[in-house]
């Protein structure tokens, strides 16, 4: 009975790992990060929790863009997150990101088109 057990476990676990679903699902046109931005998101740990249009741990970048924060405000919030603004999400830890990099990330977030993310699905 070893074979089916292995099969099941494989399926069960790969089920748990369905984050890869994010790679080709819905709304990818919303604004994929450039190579430079991707590198910054990885370097500073953003991409452990945030995806452009899908919910992983934190809100999608596209939903942050819809809040119409000034880029400076986003930079400020990276270092001093306000979990109360995002009910339903676990709290974000404060991160130390150099202003120069944070500004580039913030500007990119604000460049994301409004047709992606999870909140768009609720609004006509």
């Amino acid at each position, binding site marked *: *009975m070893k*074979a*089916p*057990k*292995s*099969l*099941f*476990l*494989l*399926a*069960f*676990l*790969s*089920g*748990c*790992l*369905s*984050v*890869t*679903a*994010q*790679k*080709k*699902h*819905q709304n990818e046109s919303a604004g994929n990060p450039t190579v430079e931005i991707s590198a910054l998101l*990885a370097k*500073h*740990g953003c*991409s*452990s*929790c945030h995806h452009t249009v*899908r*919910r*992983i*741990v934190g*809100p999608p970048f596209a*939903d942050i863009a819809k809040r119409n924060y000034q880029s400076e405000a986003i930079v400020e919030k990276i270092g001093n997150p306000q979990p109360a603004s995002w*009910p*339903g*999400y*676990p*709290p*974000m*830890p404060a*991160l130390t990101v150099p202003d120069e990099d944070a500004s580039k990330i913030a500007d990119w977030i604000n460049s994301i088109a409004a047709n992606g993310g*999870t*909140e768009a*699905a*609720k609004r006509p």
Partner: protein
Amino acid sequence: MKIRNVIIPALSLLVIGSAHAQQNHKSYPDTARFNNLNKEELFSRGERLTLATCGSCHFGNDGLLSGKLMEDVPKVFGTVYSANITNDPAHGIGGWSNGQLAYFIRTGIKPDGKRANLAMPRFPNIADPELESIIAFLKSDSSASKASELAEPKTKIKLAGKLATKMVLDNYDYPKAPRQTTDTTFLIGYGDYLVNDVLHCFACHSANIAKIDIKNPTRSKGYLGGGSKLIGMNGEKIISPNITFDNATGLGSYTEQQFLDVMKMGRKISGDWIKPPMQPYTSLSDNDIRAIYEYLKVVPVVNNKKLVTSRSTK
């Protein structure tokens, strides 16, 4: 993956299994006590546990727990969508009683007697307090669990998937003596419970995801020693890290504070960040994470020389 070797014996079990599922439904244990929960008191713990345990598979395209396509379930088993577990009575679990939900989470058996498919973990050893908290949260109108009418296409399980489910998951009956209390002050014991019965850390962090033992996690091959082949965000191969406290290939050099950092923020002591499929557990409390740390420290060390430490654990 030699499916044909198991098809014939399994076919007969399939028939028996269907009858078995019906019987189980008739012998519902008393879960009525879950129907009178102090929802307000349980809510915040329930939110933290639900986001940590259910969220990664059940968050859908509207940001609610509305279900999504599970692209990583091998196609040989079928096409699986995680269920809508929001409070919608038609599309979610809004019509289930608390007791039915408790029974389902422990056994995988739905109120109609059918079993959840193979992608849904079973939590036979979860204790009443955690179960109550999760139920209180799921039955609330929170910004994750409020009713969503989003209906993903129907899951289609192929024969191989059905056989795998029948043969391996059918024996998750409701525990005769469910764990009723949780002691969160004895850290090693509480950590054992979180790692093995609630968060299922051993599933990804042992030697081979195909050789784990859900009922007796510590008997899993290479328990917590890492080495399992997983799939990353962009389809890339990820080898799970060794999370025993081996100095050379595991977490041996992590202090409690460094462990809190990697669990809550995702930052490793190397300065690298953890990557999907692992996620930072920002919703767990410091006490939860300390308990996991204390437990991992007493797990027998695995020196996993196969791991390239610079790229995995450290």
